């Protein structure tokens, strides 16, 4: 076929080709079906080194690759080496317009689209060196501005959470009405809410509350294993963690009392509640998780048997947290300053927040 003689070389990025100076590449005309447009295309396959066991194949046709400015093998952007979605998202942040690579849904449309000579989504920018540099410059200026303000990003996140908070509140109000009749006193009775956190408690189990729904379990377990200096605790089963995101609380159980004691001794912050009870504080990013020892132990059922009970529990705990924080005084121990990295100086942010609001807006999509 004439096509095959005039064919351009495949579009494969340096990263896929590897470090060898010479590689052997096999070409198979019409060898495979393109994953994007379903049309047949010339397949190339190769190994990065003779000994390598992984055969690297071109997965999509050259037309589709050029349209999206991606490598035919790894399908990452050929300029920046990042996934398409991420690239588009980035560009839409910078250019303040919505850039997406639209993909056709049905087969006919896929083929039709692939035969058109267009650049899709962010490819319009990354395929052109000067445009891409332009974007990078813009990115730089955005980030530098952010650095000079320094508080922009947390502010932005805080704002988002503030909005969330409002929505939480309206949700909560709805939920309070909805679950008003639900009785979870039997659950609350079993929670160690009247116990006090102390540095010399000796128990394996702990009750965690004030867990924001956006905190994934691994962040909590990472924070704990960092405190305890244990690597990969999950492999050793030295601790088990149950987080019920609906109930916004969870339980933590160590394998031994010793680990539990070690954990307690590493907690540097405590909070005194108006009732003169103490709560340990585990800081995770800008959130603070409260800890109470749980001598009676727990099971998954401790957080409610169904979603309704979970939500009701979260509401009750919310009330409790507000009470506890309402007339609060933070007791901060001396080694606080050393642990500074895990804490967000919220007040500072808020002060700066007002100054930099206009700039911050530009960063928000």
């Amino acid at each position, binding site marked *: 076929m004439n096509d095959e003689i005039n064919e351009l070389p495949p579009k494969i990025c340096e990263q896929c080709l590897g470090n060898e100076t010479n590689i052997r590449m096999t070409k198979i005309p019409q060898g495979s079906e393109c994953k994007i447009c379903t049309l047949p295309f010339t397949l190339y396959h190769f190994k990065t080194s003779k000994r390598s066991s992984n055969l690297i194949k071109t997965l999509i046709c050259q037309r589709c690759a050029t349209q999206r400015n991606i490598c035919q093998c790894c399908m990452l952007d050929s300029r920046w080496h*990042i996934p398409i979605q991420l690239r588009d998202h980035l560009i839409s*942040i910078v250019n303040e317009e919505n850039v997406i690579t639209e993909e056709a849904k049905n087969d006919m449309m896929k083929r039709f689209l692939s035969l058109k000579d267009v650049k899709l989504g962010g490819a319009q920018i990354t395929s052109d060196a000067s445009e891409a540099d332009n974007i990078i410059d813009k990115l730089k200026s955005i980030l530098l501005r952010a650095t000079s303000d320094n508080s922009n990003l947390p502010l932005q996140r805080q704002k988002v959470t503030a909005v969330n908070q409002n929505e939480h509140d309206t949700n909560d109000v709805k939920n309070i009405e909805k679950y008003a009749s639900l009785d979870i006193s039997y659950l609350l009775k079993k929670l160690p809410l009247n116990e006090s956190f102390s540095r010399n408690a000796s128990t394996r189990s702990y009750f965690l509350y004030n867990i924001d729904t956006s905190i994934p379990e691994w962040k909590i377990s990472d924070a704990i294993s960092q405190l305890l200096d244990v690597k990969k605790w999950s492999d050793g089963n030295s601790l088990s963690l149950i987080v019920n995101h609906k109930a916004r609380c969870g339980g933590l159980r160590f394998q031994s009392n010793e680990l539990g004691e070690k954990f307690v001794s590493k907690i540097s912050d405590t909070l005194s509640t108006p009732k003169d009870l103490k709560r340990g504080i585990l800081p995770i990013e800008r959130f603070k998780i409260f800890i109470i020892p749980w001598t009676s132990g727990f099971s998954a059922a401790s957080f409610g048997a169904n979603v309704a009970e979970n939500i009701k529990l979260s509401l009750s705990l919310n009330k409790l947290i507000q009470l506890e924080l309402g007339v609060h005084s933070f007791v901060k121990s001396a080694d606080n300053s050393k642990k500074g990295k895990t804490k967000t100086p919220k007040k500072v942010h808020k002060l700066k927040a007002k100054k930099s609001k206009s700039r911050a807006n530009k960063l928000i999509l």
Partner: protein
Amino acid sequence: MKSWKDRSAKVQVKESELPSSIPAQTGLTFNIWYSKWSQGFAGNTRFVSPFALQPQPHSGRTRGDNDDQLFFCLFFAKGMCCLGSKCQYLHHIPNEDDVDKLALRTEVLDCFGREKFADYREDMGGVGSFRRKNRTLYIGGIDGALNGKHLKSTQIESRIRFVFSRLGAIDRIRYVEDKNCAFVKFKYQANAEFGKEAMSNQTLLLPSDKEWEDRREGTGLLVKWANEDPDPAAQKRLQEEQKLESLNMMVRLINNNTITSAGAGVDNNTKKIPDRKETPEVSINSTKKRLLPIDNGLQSDIFIENLKKLKKNENIEHNPSNSFSRKVGGPLVDYPSSDEE
């Protein structure tokens, strides 16, 4: 507890004990390409796998670890690799370093090296799609996996939590009682891919249950990809994660750019030398890890740190010192900011 790195992988099943590669006859003709029976009575093809992966005792070093293999052994995940330490694929649960290496290589292959597809299968099973980074698994068929044994919803949730938390860092687990299904979200996509293969057609019964002996009579778990969570709160979380991810990427891109502009005269080819050879040995330092696209766990504080460093870079760029311009970095090679610590 010893880590898998200190021992060689176990042979999970002896070769002689492996079942015939031809499945029990459920049709009239056997298709040797798909290794499936077709035509005639379809019958029930669901079964409980006689093999199960036991993450702790089974994992260990294999030939793949010496050869810098990226991909995991599919048979290991299913608990039926008869090669043990002679296997050329990896025999352990995907961890952070593996995920980093995989992400550098490609996003179109799953952690077993299988090609993903543009769209999900109709039933959301199979290898999955390269268009969406899906870290959530749908767990169905719970009733069959318990052989109809009646358990309280919290007990079922605990069992699911137990089996899946051994297969990688968990983001969140939710058991939906009304639908008798569960959603397990992992920290990394590779763990979801691994967990999907490891837990498909497995039983949820424990050896202490009296039904344990009859577990093969059940139907096993159905593990599939989850659709996007329609809960508005979850969608908001997702958006925020994405935003953070792109912001990290911004910093990374600019860092690369600073390096290349400082190391003037470096042409395209040398600049793009990937550091795949370097990353395996030196476990990527934490700052750098934070900048990789796969990490969603960036803390905003660290992000600020990066920004500060970036500013420093900027200054350096104006009067490039010798040591700085000597640095020739690829897109993922250590950039100065992480060295300055």
